[in-house]
């Protein structure tokens, strides 16, 4: 868990206005901690990793804000689907062996070409 300033220090190429805009766009969603005299953003590990991801996409693929929004949306969908798959696999894993075998037999082979 780190604050805004520490996050800025961690990534030399990041500027405050940029990061604020990302939070505004909900590309990065820090937790808001209420303190005396106002609110403060708290970034968890997932948020820090997300900032690094956005920095990477922006720099390495020269993607602008609009395209970035699309890229992040698609990435989030992919990860969401992976989470669904994981849950489904976990559920299957908990079944008795004969059910797991039956499912395995029933799965059509993946197309290779």
């Amino acid at each position, binding site marked *: *868990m780190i604050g805004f300033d*520490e996050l800025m*220090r961690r*990534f*030399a*190429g990041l500027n405050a206005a940029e990061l604020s805009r990302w939070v505004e766009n*909900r590309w990065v*969603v820090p*937790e808001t*901690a*209420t*303190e*005396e005299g106002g609110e403060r953003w*708290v970034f*968890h*590990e*997932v*948020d820090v*990793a*997300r900032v*690094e*991801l956005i*920095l*990477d996409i922006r*720099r390495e693929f020269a993607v602008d804000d609009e395209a970035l929004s699309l890229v992040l*949306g698609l*990435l*989030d*969908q992919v*990860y*969401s*689907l*992976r*989470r*669904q798959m*994981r*849950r*489904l696999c*976990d*559920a299957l894993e*908990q079944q008795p062996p004969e059910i797991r075998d039956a499912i395995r037999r029933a799965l059509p082979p993946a197309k290779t070409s």
Partner: protein
Amino acid sequence: MATQTPYEVLGVKSDATADEIRKAYRKLAKQFHPDLNPGKPAAEARFKAVSAAHDILSDPEKRARYDRGEIDESGAERPRYSYRPHAEGAQGWKYQPEGEMDVGDLDDLFEMFGRGGRRGGARGRTTGGRGGEGFSMPGPDRHYSLTIDFVTAATGGKQRLALSPDEWLDVTIPAGIEEGQILRLKGKGGPGFGGGPAGDALIELHIAPHPFFRREGDDIHLELPVSLSEAVLGARVPVPTVTGPVTMAIPKGSDTGARLRLRGRGIHRKRQGKEVTGDQYVTLKVVIGASDDPELAKFLEDWAKQHPVDPRGGMAQGASHGAAA
């Protein structure tokens, strides 16, 4: 202390030109060169730091790699960390597409599953007596993290937790929770499938620091500023506690560092079925306030003549002993 960036070491902005960097480097290198500062290890260390910073920033390729976070201040490769484990980890739900894609999609999947079963597999299922719908499973647990303010952590209360951008949960915080404690809210996790029970929400609690309260176990500590006259003459003053202000008597002739106890004004909670109550400890700090007041100065001139006091008496002795040892 956090490590300085090469930009900070050279005292230049992160968008400095090559020329600005070269100038800053020359100036600092001259200032801290070991030959000009013989026998000064601090200068030598600065010189090394300055050289290392210049090494990175003077080379456009290295500088770009540093800016991208590929190398660290010493020029060493920084381990690249991938976003995927985070996205698929406990906190990854935050960035899932709007509208709880989560549940809906799995439901869709199971619906497909059910249809397939009914269409192709009427054989083996009839013996089960429940037809093709007998699939049920408890929902998954969900993990959250919540930062609560100091007073709520001490006295208990309600705090709102964002489950997703448009879903909230009012969490009841028990009094006297500890940093890192995990609350389990039964049935507040992911919904069950096919009539199975919902999972639990596991909430890791973090306590934000307070500007003047400090906690040690069930006791609260507080430094309380008092005026010179309150300390010397005694007074009844209001003192904040976690449950609201109370009036406390300051005994006549108190001094900075005096510690007073407000019994039962600490954290009140149940621990292993028993009620436990902490105290609040108040450490006085005498603040003169009107230290430029001519009347006070006049009074002290006369008073000091008749009452010579040396509050540092013990210190001088201690220091000389320390040096001799």
